[in-house]
């Protein structure tokens, strides 16, 4: 098959359940121009180098062919993941202030008990059910509840922000096709609505501080000042979406992978202390963010002998790098005790995942709780039905059966 159709095939929904053979093809074919003008990189060392390369921009305004997603308006700027330094660094640092070190080092660690309790409550709610949808019953509600608490968003508003989120995610889907422009338009509209919603929530807390990040954004002032109102809107849209739409995939991919490797599931049940490394291996083996679609070079650059021209869309396929045999021995094997696992599951470099520590803790606790309570779990369908996005990839549903005697 010619390389110029590879991107079509990777984004083709028919290949969502198992894109890995296509990634192998991508690594074989080097860096090639796709039909839509974009360049795909799937080799580990090249992706890792590009993620640390100051010549690579995350700002879509630097693309030769600008698109709707690049629209930057005064009332709702793009979020920091779509910016370059130094502005990216300033905004990320301000967003980090109420989230983690150096200013708030203990916040995530302090959520340990609460996350475990939420997981336990979700499990308790499934008492007596011998058939479970891992996504709707567990993997989705867990991170949603957590991110709502952390940001200070009412949990009961989930149906509202869920709908906006779906539109926004669809607009990030780089699948070529006629509806791309339309998806980007409605994504932008949803972003604006969601931004207003979160901006109002934050505004209500001005002068009435509570223990959540929205409150900190409006009330705390550090040496770098504080976020402006439009920046708060853009940042909290990002955090709310990223905080609940990626973790759900990681938990679900985790359950699916463990059910496909029952001996590993059994080992983790017996030795839960192995879970942190198992989660890192999941991030390598089935990463929730499969590719970073919004980079482009600020100058002509050479990658694996191919010149990627300034302003061309450059798509870094993290999930392919994670399976690169030049970096990982036996890359298609799921090995929860893998040594020196420097995977790209959370990206790398200055844009590496902001919420990574929270996701790690949530998924470690979620999987530990789930496998402790599942008696003889079995996949009902394999592969399960997948969500549409090739970027944020994961099952839409994961129906499983279990024995209920004694639970």
């Amino acid at each position, binding site marked *: 098959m010619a390389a110029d159709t590879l991107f079509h095939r990777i984004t083709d929904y028919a290949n969502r359940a198992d894109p890995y053979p296509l990634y192998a093809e991508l690594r074989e074919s080097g860096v090639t121009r796709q039909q839509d003008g974009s360049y795909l990189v799937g080799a580990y060392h090249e992706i890792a*180098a590009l993620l*640390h*390369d*100051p*010549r690579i*921009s995350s*700002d879509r305004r630097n693309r030769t062919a600008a698109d709707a997603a690049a629209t930057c308006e005064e009332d709702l700027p793009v979020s920091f993941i779509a910016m*370059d*330094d*130094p502005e990216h*660094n300033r905004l990320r640092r301000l967003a980090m202030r109420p989230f983690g070190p150096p200013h708030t080092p203990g916040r995530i660690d302090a959520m340990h008990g609460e996350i475990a309790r939420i997981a336990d409550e979700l499990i308790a709610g499934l008492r007596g059910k011998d058939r479970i949808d891992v996504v709707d019953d567990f993997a989705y509600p867990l991170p949603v509840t957590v991110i709502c608490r952390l940001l200070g968003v009412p949990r009961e508003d989930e149906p509202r922000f869920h709908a906006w989120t779906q539109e926004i995610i669809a607009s990030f889907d780089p699948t070529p096709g006629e509806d791309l422009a339309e998806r980007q338009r409605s994504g932008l509209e949803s972003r604006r609505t969601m931004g207003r919603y979160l901006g109002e929530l934050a505004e209500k807390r001005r002068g009435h501080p509570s223990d959540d990040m929205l409150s900190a954004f409006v009330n705390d002032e550090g040496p770098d000042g504080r976020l402006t109102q439009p920046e708060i809107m853009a940042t909290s849209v990002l955090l709310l979406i990223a905080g609940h739409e990626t973790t759900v995939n990681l938990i679900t991919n985790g359950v699916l992978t463990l059910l496909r490797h029952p001996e590993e599931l059994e080992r983790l049940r017996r030795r839960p202390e192995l879970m942190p490394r198992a989660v890192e291996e999941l991030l390598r083996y089935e990463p929730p963010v499969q590719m970073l679609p919004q980079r482009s070079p*600020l*100058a002509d650059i050479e990658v694996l002998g191919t010149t990627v021209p300034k302003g061309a869309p450059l798509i870094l396929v993290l999930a392919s790098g994670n399976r690169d045999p030049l970096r990982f021995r036996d890359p298609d094997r799921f090995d929860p005790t893998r040594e020196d696992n420097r995977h790209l599951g959370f990206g790398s*470099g*200055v844009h590496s995942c902001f919420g990574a520590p929270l996701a790690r803790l949530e998924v470690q606790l979620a999987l530990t709780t789930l496998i402790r309570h599942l008696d003889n779990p079995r996949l009902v369908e394999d592969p399960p039905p997948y969500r549409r996005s090739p970027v944020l990839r994961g099952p839409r549903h994961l129906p499983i059966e279990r024995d209920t005697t004694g639970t």
Partner: protein
Amino acid sequence: MSGDLRDGRIVIVGASLAGLRAAETLREKGFAGSLTLVGEDPRPPYDRPPLSKQVLLGRVPAEDTGLPLRRPVDAQWKLGVRATGLDPIEKRVLLANGEQLPFDRLLITTGTRARPWPNPAEAALDGVFTLRTSEDAGRIAERLDAGPRRVLVIGAGFTGSEIASACRERGLDVTVAERGPAPLVGALGGSFGALAAKLQRAHGVDLRCGVTVTALTGNGRLTGAELSDGSRIEADIAVVALGAIRNTEWLAESGLAAGPRGLACDAGCRAFNMYGIVTDDVFVAGDVARFPHPLFEYQLLSLEHWGNAVEQAEVAAHNMVSPGPLRRPHLAVPAFWSSQFGLNIKSVGVPTFSDQVVLAQGSPKEARLVAVYGYRGRVTAAVSVNQAKSLEYYQRLIETAAPFPPEPVGTDRPEPMTPVPSDVPDPAVLSHGPTVALTGHLPDRRLTLVRR
């Protein structure tokens, strides 16, 4: 792998970071013979970088700095005993307690010690310290706990600057006296040093450059110091941070190419003898080694770097148990870090191997930057301040001998980028010895013909 090399007796003299990592690597590579580690420090191997940081800040007790093992080493440890000589003919290491250790292969990782204050009587004053061992750090930390009125730090290299940083963080008054024009110039050159000087002063350090301490005064107890500009300061603690001395004296009669600048070896860590002939049973690694590096015109480098101790020890150990064709060169790009005054400073390459430097990313005002060093039109080093994630890119420029000044890249850089002289001083003008010494063109001593 040849069976012989995996057996026999290996002695490692120097039981700190390099010695330990070498021992682990020997076992990892299948060495099944007897392994003996000799160390002058009575403590098993510990990590030194925390001594000038966490320990001086009082967050970590000096004795809580032991290094973790990568794997069991199954070794005989002879700690608290100094090696006093080496008999290369009989292949024995002589110890201060009279013991003789026979070996088939020897690894020398004796490292360095702190350069003492040159006046022994003044050095003996209560309150005068050097900082190299965990015992040193523990004693200084104890004195800092007691709340001295002022601390004098003599020498503004990395160690001196980190000591000053810890003192300021504790809220203590501190004076830093440096003979050179600015802090860190010995390792990073004058242009970077100017930044470091601003940083120290902004953090309340009483920084005195271009001066030497002519006398430490006191009667049994340190009370102050006299400076070459005629000024006096009162201080009840002085930390002498004048750099390091390589522990090679014990090799004086060994016939090896050992001197004040270290023990010379080839790219495979095999020691040279004094005639420049390579040995095949004596290896060297860590701070005490001088080795040729292709990226730096094969000059002999001696690096007082944590990372070099680890990497060179691994290469030396590998080569000690591998036959010739399977031996590896030690080619790692030199790298080090320092944290001081709330900033993370990282370096790759050899900044002193430079004639120019350019600010390539970030800004000094934001205290986030990358400075790139060049020598005769090629990139030889890069130093980041709170910008570690960018350093890989510049390391690749060094490895590929990219042209200097580098192409202006990225969105976070000054416009225009203007290279300036890097102002690497002659080490002779500094208080502190350089942590990287380019020693190739400066022979230690003349050859003398020894007849046996």
